[in-house]
């Protein structure tokens, strides 16, 4: 992925020279002739590095830097000053503003490139080290919102795939609860939000879901509708989750009778592949997002399953696409892709490889669970 550098300088010739140097060495550049222009660009996208001239009319580079430091979204973007002034006081003033370094305008291009490469490499290594440490701790604490493997059933096979967004854990969570040889619950949820915040809360939701299922099952209650209603009420009552919401799809597999039931909360439709059909058949649940209202109206749907038929549970990241720089959510497009794959009788692994295609820009974490009647 190209890294983006925001260049800010009132001297257009200097800007173009820098832009040419950087783009011909693999960077993407956004250029701004003033601090005002730079701030407009920052509202649109967050660059990996900002290089700003010091001397500019209206607002100079120091004022720009001071402003960035007051904004939570911008204050941690690495920042370099570019200047023709090589005065010790200026250098000190800039470094006091947490600028990482200076580049003077007469620095040879190769030195400039090395400086930028080294800086971004150091930032990336630092980030990956921190990420690795957190992942290591989560691993040790057995904090896992995606299980290591699916249970083996007699009449069904389960495949599942999850891809995190920008290599960070996200709000999608999956669970399989095999109660006994007959009943298995399949759970897919998506905490609204992204990255660490959503990941953290996914464990609260998972704990409640496991508890609700287990407590109902202890009473021989296998009604998905009742499980969902109880689950929703307890989440609604939890003040810590007052502003956090999650979607949920639950499927109860009866491995003895070979049947399934489904209930959902604010989730995308469950999709089913039937032999000799012209497209995937959607099953829409009635329930609203967990935790929004005390009573969420969760109904369960019986879904008949013939041999070789499959159902798909998906998170919203699966239907988000970025085409020509424009992001959009398109369930129909996803359905068509999946149906065409099934028509060509591809395996679950091939479905995964195709749907998680690297050429389609991913904008969120994505999950899919495939349940097949064998």
């Amino acid at each position, binding site marked *: 992925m190209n890294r983006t550098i925001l260049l800010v300088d009132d001297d257009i010739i200097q800007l173009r020279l820098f832009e040419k140097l950087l783009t011909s060495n693999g960077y993407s550049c956004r250029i701004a002739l003033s601090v005002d222009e730079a701030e407009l660009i920052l509202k649109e996208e967050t660059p990996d590095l900002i290089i700003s001239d010091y001397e500019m009319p209206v607002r100079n580079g120091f004022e720009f830097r001071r402003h960035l430091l007051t904004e939570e979204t911008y204050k941690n973007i690495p920042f370099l000053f570019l200047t023709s002034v090589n005065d010790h006081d200026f250098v000190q003033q800039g470094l006091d503003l947490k600028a990482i370094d200076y580049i003077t305008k007469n620095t040879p291009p190769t030195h400039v490139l090395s400086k930028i490469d080294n800086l971004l490499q150091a930032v990336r290594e630092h980030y990956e080290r921190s990420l690795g440490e957190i992942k290591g701790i989560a691993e040790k604490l057995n904090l896992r919102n995606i299980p290591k493997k699916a249970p083996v059933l007699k009449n069904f096979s389960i495949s599942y795939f999850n891809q995190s967004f920008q290599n960070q854990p996200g709000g999608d969570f999956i669970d399989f609860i095999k109660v006994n040889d007959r009943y298995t619950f399949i759970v897919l949820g998506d905490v609204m939000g*992204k990255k660490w915040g*959503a990941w953290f809360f996914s464990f609260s939701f998972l704990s409640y879901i496991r508890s609700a299922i287990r407590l109902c099952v202890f009473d021989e209650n296998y009604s998905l509708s009742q499980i969902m209603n109880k689950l929703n009420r307890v989440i609604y009552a939890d003040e810590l989750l*007052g*502003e956090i919401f999650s979607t949920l799809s639950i499927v109860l597999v009866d491995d003895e009778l070979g049947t399934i039931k489904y209930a959902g909360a*604010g989730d995308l439709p469950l999709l089913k592949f039937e032999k000799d059909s012209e497209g995937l058949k959607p099953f829409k649940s009635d329930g609203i997002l967990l935790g*929004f209202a005390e009573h969420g109206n969760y109904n369960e749907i019986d879904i008949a399953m013939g041999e070789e038929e499959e159902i798909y549970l998906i998170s919203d990241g699966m239907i988000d696409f970025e085409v020509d720089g424009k*992001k959009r*959510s398109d369930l129909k497009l996803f359905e068509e892709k999946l149906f065409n794959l099934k028509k060509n009788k591809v395996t679950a692994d091939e479905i995964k490889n195709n749907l998680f295609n690297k050429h389609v820009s991913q904008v969120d974490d994505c999950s899919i669970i495939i349940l097949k009647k064998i």
Partner: protein
Amino acid sequence: MDITKQNINDVLLITIEDKDANLSKSEHFKEQVLNEITLGARKLIVSFERVEYIDSSFLGAMVAILKNLLPQDGKLVLIELNSDINNLFELTRLDKIFDLKDSLETALKEF
């Protein structure tokens, strides 16, 4: 997040000026609107006229605003959602909890 605010009688119209309503903007947007509610706003219209894409973080922020507003006898109407965003609301049953209208004119009749 860039928003513009306009008072139409006692209704506050908030227009989202960004085309990409995502994670990096959702928290700030939520704070801005909750602040208006704290200051007394109870009749709100949010315009998505300029929004091309909305992610689940921003949806979550919208739901949190509504959940905050309803117990205070407030009303929130969302207008001018593009077809993708409108579909997303329908697919996830958010159309059951939000009042969605095509235009400002129809939204104003709700109050």
